[in-house]
């Protein structure tokens, strides 16, 4: 008798894999972008299954909310020609398929052989507090570096999109 966990897992797995395949295989970039959004949502569902609710929220906010939208914007900005053929395969598709399959086979073999020394226990009482402690404790350097990284990325993105503008005559 399948428990509810398993049902949700398989549903979400099907959603994630199916929409990911759609992202890769569809030839319309707008469709790809929409399925990408769906994949992100599916992954957020998986996080909930894994008791990472905060992460799921962040996933929805940043990935589904920001990144996917950003990508759609970019798609619209650079649209040209026939949209139905805007996302074609490259000449490398078949070798890429071979490489991907071999890589998957390797990881699958590795996962199949692995005896994980795991145990399932209840998650921490207050995951958010625990996260916050980590961010400002053990990973505070990473946290600060991330802040600078975001700043640099914003500065850079604005710079590059604006293009050349002479500041001095």
């Amino acid at each position, binding site marked *: 008798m399948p428990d509810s966990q398993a049902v949700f897992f398989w549903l979400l797995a099907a959603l994630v894999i199916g929409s990911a395949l759609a992202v890769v295989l569809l030839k319309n970039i707008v469709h790809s972008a929409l399925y990408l959004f769906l994949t992100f949502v599916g992954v957020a569902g998986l996080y909930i299954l894994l008791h990472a609710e905060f992460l799921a929220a962040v996933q929805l906010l940043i990935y589904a909310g920001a990144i996917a939208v950003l990508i759609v914007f970019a798609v619209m900005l650079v649209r040209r020609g026939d949209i139905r053929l805007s996302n074609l395969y*490259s*000449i*490398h*598709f*078949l*070798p*890429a398929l071979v*490489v991907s399959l*071999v*890589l998957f086979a*390797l990881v699958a*073999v590795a996962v199949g*052989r692995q005896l994980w020394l795991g145990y399932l226990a209840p998650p921490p009482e207050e995951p958010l507090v625990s996260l916050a402690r980590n961010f400002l404790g053990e990973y505070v350097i990473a946290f600060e570096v991330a802040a600078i990284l975001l700043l640099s990325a914003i500065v850079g993105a604005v710079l590059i999109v604006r293009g050349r503008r002479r500041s001095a005559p």
Partner: protein
Amino acid sequence: MANLYWIPKAWLIPLLPALAFPFIAFITRKARGLSALTAILAIGVSLVISLGVLWEVIAHGITMDNPVEYSTVWLQIPQLLKIEAGLLIDPLSAVMLLVVTLVAFLVEIYSIGYMEDDPGFSVFFAYLSLFGASMLGLVLANNYFMIYFFWELVGLCSYLLIGFWYHRAEAARAGFKAFVVNRLADFGFLLGFFFLFIIFHTFNFRELAAAIPAYHNVGLLTVAALLVFTGPIGKSAQFPLHVWLPDAMEGPTPVSALIHAATMVAAGVYLLARAYVLFASLPNVMLVVAYVGGFTAIFAATIAIAQRDIKRILAYSTISQLGYMVMAMGVGSMTAGIFHLTTHAFFKALLFLAAGSVIHALHEQDIFRMGGLYKDMKVTTVTFIIGALALAGIPPFAGFWSKDEILAAAYHNGFLGLYILGTLVAFLTAFYMFRLIFITFFGERRAGLHGHESPPVMTIPLGILALLSIFAGFVGTPFTARGFSTFVYYAAPHEVEPDYMVMALSTLVALAGIALAWWLYGRPSDLPERLKESYRWAYNLLWNKFYIDEFYLWIYRRIFWGLAEAFHWHDRHVVDGLWDGVGDVTRASGQKLRYLQTGNLQTYALVFFTAVVVIALWMAGMGGMIR
């Protein structure tokens, strides 16, 4: 050893010219006179110290077995690597110091006159100083590493000076050729002492000398010795790497005298002497050394017969004489080799400088366009003849004694073939030198050329070198008690026994050579032309130097270029084409061929991930994880 005065100051000998180099290059570059003065002053003081060192070596009984060594650690990695910077002062280095500083001093004085009108006057003196410093450092080095360091540095100076007139295409090309050939040889030398280091964990000459006789893996040692020997083959222009030296004559003549005749090319012979314990313990390697030397001697001497360029004749003569020295090393007489090195340095420098005096006056190097110069250039003629007599081995000139010792050593150590060969070379040497003299200095004046004697600043060095060419040999005659052979030796000091048969024979063949030269070229005759016509093939062979250069060029063009082209093609078409090709074949679409060009980032990414997959498969297979 408490009251030594000069020897503890030996480190100044290379340092002074070394300081002169940047001083001239950066400060006195614009002031030509000051540049020359700085260089000459530096080498002059070095000469004085060298004299002091030699005097103290003799006076204080410092022998080959009992040298003075100063050393400091230059670079150390515990238990692995220790490189010293140090000085080794024994009779061998003391003699070399004197030779180098003396010749360099005289050549620099001479250069004032010779380079008078050259715009690169100061730079020339800077280079000469740098060369002097490197050569002196090489002589004083107490370990392989340091000798290699200076070995490369003299190579660099040689390159710079050959190409001194770099705006002339031949000069630039000759410099490049010397560089490439020497790199090849130096690479072998480097490997050789690398091997020695791996076996013995030291670069130091004395430590190696103590360790080598006790080592019994002859095979490995033989490889090391042969590799070390490639260094001298390159630097001392032995067959088959002699090709760079004649071309090096594109440099200014004082450079030819100092570097490509008297000192740097002798560095190979000096290295053989320094590494002698290594060679002496390997009879087979000694045979190789002896025969390479002997063959080079006769090979170069025959080529010299047919050349027309005054400097090229002297260049081939240098190769031939270097062959003599190497042969002396090979037949087991380090004494004879170094003795010949010393006397040769004086008379060959003299010959080159005298030839330079001729070139300076005439701006012409083809001997067949000269003639009758003795009327205008008395000093030059006389000194040149003295040098030639010394080179030809006519007693009592310096060359006679040293050459005689080599021949005697070959004869007495059982190398009868090499002895005969050496005697033959003596004959050829006398012949081509006097062919040169009769054509250049005697006979009739050729039209359009008017010689004039060079200024005293050039002729005085000639005179000093002429005196040395006459008298320097007396330190090592068989009649000198406690002579050169008890001073510079390997294993044990010994007195040379006079062998009148060898002496008489070599004198006779030398005289015969001179006579033949006179008979062919000393009197008006068309005999040489007729000989040339009837033996056209032989003449062509000699004139074209046995086609060695052409052979190398062919190898270079065919094989080396071919390889480079192949690699290039491979990169462009195979590596890049591979992945594009895979996609192309699967799509079977000829239209897509234009995508075969690279610059495609996905090709790069695909290579990246394919590499990851291949590595994973390989490692998994190695770890037995996939069955």
